């Protein structure tokens, strides 16, 4: 947060600076460049604002929701009112409190899976491309096999054996099944770099493989890594909630998927308690959309051909 004013000050003066920093350009121009890109792309703005709201909710749920999300102490199946903004469940829980407090687990799963599977994908994808030979063949085979085994059925089978998967188990299972797609992309990118001059130079200097991979290759793939994080986070939100919805998560956890599980078990739709089903679904949608929108915007920023055509912008300016 404290960084914000600094980078906006730098903002206007960045264009001439951009050309100057080499591959290891300072953090401030890069940050302000991202901020500028986020502000200029409407999809990115909407996505980022949504994500920030969810992060704040996950960090400080108690500030706006004072009720205990697990307590079954209120009147059952009440409609929305001043005391219960979104009403109560058939079990006597406050829906608003559940929705707000549920943000935390979903976000932990999303961010955890996003980071971990990006890390695994990077190590495996880049190592495969850089090492080549039989190591590449083996890692590539592993990636391909995992890529074609249908994910959701596999997740269901694993979660069934685990029984009542909590946060950590969900993160582990979703990560182990989800990294292969990004590993594939990262390998392709790293392959295209393999014979570039700056890598050749590093090799001639006598740098070790580890140094070359960490310092020379990975920083050139930042945008792919961001995309990988966002894709995997979205995947984790959707599939994690789905597993919880069909009752394979921990039924006592406070999260949107679990809310939907209890709503379905108590026939919320058939008994008129629509909000019990609508609210968690809308939240999953909004969080998922924020990841998807940021990802799509990054795509547009990276690939100018996909940007909305300029004609439009000129019209709006007039």
């Amino acid at each position: 947060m404290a960084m914000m004013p600094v980078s906006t000050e730098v903002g206007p003066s960045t264009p001439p600076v951009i050309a100057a920093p080499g591959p290891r350009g300072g953090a401030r121009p890069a940050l302000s460049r991202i901020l500028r890109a986020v502000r200029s792309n409407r999809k990115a703005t909407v996505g980022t604002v949504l994500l920030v709201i969810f992060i704040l909710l996950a960090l400080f749920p108690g500030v706006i929701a004072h009720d205990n999300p697990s307590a079954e102490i209120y009147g059952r199946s009440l409609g929305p009112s001043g005391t219960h903004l979104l009403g109560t469940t058939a079990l006597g829980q406050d829906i608003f409190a559940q929705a707000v407090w549920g943000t935390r687990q979903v976000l932990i799963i999303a961010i955890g899976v996003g980071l971990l599977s990006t890390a695994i994908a990077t190590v495996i994808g880049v190592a495969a491309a850089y090492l080549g030979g039989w190591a590449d063949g083996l890692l590539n085979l592993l990636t391909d096999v995992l890529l074609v085994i249908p994910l959701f059925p596999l997740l269901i089978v694993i979660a069934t054996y685990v029984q009542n998967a909590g946060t950590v188990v969900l993160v582990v299972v979703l990560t182990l099944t989800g990294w292969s797609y990004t590993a594939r992309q990262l390998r392709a990118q790293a392959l295209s770099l393999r014979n570039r001059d700056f890598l050749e130079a590093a090799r001639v200097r006598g740098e070790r493989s580890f140094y070359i991979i960490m310092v020379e290759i990975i920083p050139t793939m930042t945008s792919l890594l961001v995309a990988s994080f966002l894709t995997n986070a979205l995947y984790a939100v959707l599939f994690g909630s789905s597993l919880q919805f069909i009752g394979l998560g921990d039924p006592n956890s406070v999260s949107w998927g679990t809310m939907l599980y209890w709503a379905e078990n108590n026939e919320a739709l058939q008994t008129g308690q629509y909000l019990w089903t609508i609210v968690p679904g809308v939240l999953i949608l909004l969080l998922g959309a924020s990841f998807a929108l940021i990802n799509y915007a990054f795509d547009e920023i990276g690939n100018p051909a996909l940007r909305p055509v300029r004609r439009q912008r000129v019209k709006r300016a007039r």
Partner: protein
Amino acid sequence: MRFILRRLGFFLLTLWAAVTLNFFLPRLMPGNPALAMLGKFRGPVNPSALKALEVAFGVKTHQSLISQYFSYLGNISTGKFGTSLYFYPESVGRVILDAIPWTLGLVGVTTILAFVLGTGVGIVAAWRRGGVMDSILPPTFVITSAIPYFWIGLMLILIFSEKLGWFPSSNGYDVTAIPSFTGPFIENVLWHAVLPAAALLITTIGTWVLTMRNTMVTTLAEDYIRMARAKGLPSRRIMLDYAARNAILPNLTGFAMSLGFVVGGAILVEYVFNYPGVGFMLLQAVNNEDYPLMQALFLLITVAVLVAILMADIATAVFDPRTRARG
């Protein structure tokens, strides 16, 4: 030829990996969950079926893991999936055969529809760059891609079944109807398929539109398009024969693959609508700890995907000479 042989080898290897996962997963879990399941069923299941189960889940501890593994491989390769515990005394194979037509009908038709519609919309959106369709659709589909399948199903039930009462909210046909190939029964089945099909269509169409649009945008920048324009060809012809025809390859490959996902692709939609297909069966097996049925369904779904990928590979090799050159 070498390319196809290599893909065939990959097919067999992945199949083996899936079977092996099936075998080792229950054994890797703390306390072997299958033991608890078997204890429950010891009464009603006949001894020979129980024996097969014990082999499949590693209950016979006096056998070494390796010999268990090979007798399991033997059982699978001869199609012995055992007896379903939930639908006892029906065999797993029988239960699955009953479920397959429902899934093929519902998901198969919807997949084809989504592909045709989505590709068409993608072509037009890219052609009229900056038009209404092009500026509204991509962001919309980015958002629909973030909606859980099952929740769309729930919302459709809420609106069209609970509120408006237009369509039934569960089952493949009326409980009172007797399955037969008569007009009224078929009508009844179609009636029940409308909402699940709509849920699938809404969630899957976006990918086709976005992929087609994005490839088409790239294709439209090619020199041969400019050449076609310069020649004064009718724009319809440029759009379909020049641009779309070249841009459709990624979508076609995706389509071939998605046909494989038909079998297992609609698990949650089938679950929400109690639609008697493969996915619903899988979750029934999960909820009732019917592990033999669950394992067999997982294998079936995997095999379907693998076969589709193999077909897609062969088709690409036949139609795209570049692949053959690389292989």
